[in-house]
């Protein structure tokens, strides 16, 4: 597609379950970012992938969070043993170059009951 695609758009889960969120970046974009936005708040950086370099994981809030990017394209953010404080909108963005203009997807809204 023309833009960044994220799925699912909405996910409701029970506390303690694992969830996977998917991001399909714009074709040809080498950089991929995950951010989190809690209700009424700004964007919190989670993780950044650039080409074949080691990802910048400095924003992951705990070891329950992990992400991978396969084949330099699609990325999956996994949250294990979800907690209520994980409820937020998870936003993915891609960029054609290392430090360039970011384009965001529509986000995945996660609700943990």
């Amino acid at each position, binding site marked *: 597609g023309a833009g960044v695609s994220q799925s699912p758009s909405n996910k409701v889960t029970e506390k303690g379950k694992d969830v996977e969120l998917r991001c399909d970046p714009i074709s040809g974009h080498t950089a991929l970012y995950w951010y989190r936005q809690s209700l009424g708040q700004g964007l919190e950086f989670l993780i950044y992938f650039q080409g074949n370099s080691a990802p910048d994981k400095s924003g992951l809030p705990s070891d329950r969070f992990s992400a991978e990017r396969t084949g330099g394209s699609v990325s999956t953010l996994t949250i294990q043993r979800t907690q209520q404080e994980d409820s937020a909108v998870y936003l993915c963005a891609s960029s054609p170059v290392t430090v360039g203009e*970011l384009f*965001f997807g529509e986000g995945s809204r996660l609700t943990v009951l």
Partner: protein
Amino acid sequence: GIQVEQSPPDLILQEGANSTLRCNFSDSVNNLQWFHQNPWGQLINLFYIPSGTKQNGRLSATTVATERYSLLYISSSQTTDSGVYFCAVTNQGGSEKLVFGKGTKLTVN
């Protein structure tokens, strides 16, 4: 890490009014973007402007990198301009992540 401060935090305008939103940052940057987050949550790119001035219709932006600030001008505001405006920067020589300010919430009545 680099700090990004946006002002004002909230702004209420009557339709047709003009406004200026400000973004201050604490260190040198090699990337600066302005985004509009609409009421449905979608982040829309307004400007990629690490330096200089750009204009797009009723919106324009200026970044003075040496003074560590950027301004977003909205002229003849419309109700569709409502939402949250975010400034985001990448610290030159630092991490390549884009750091966001807390945003300016604009309401146009």
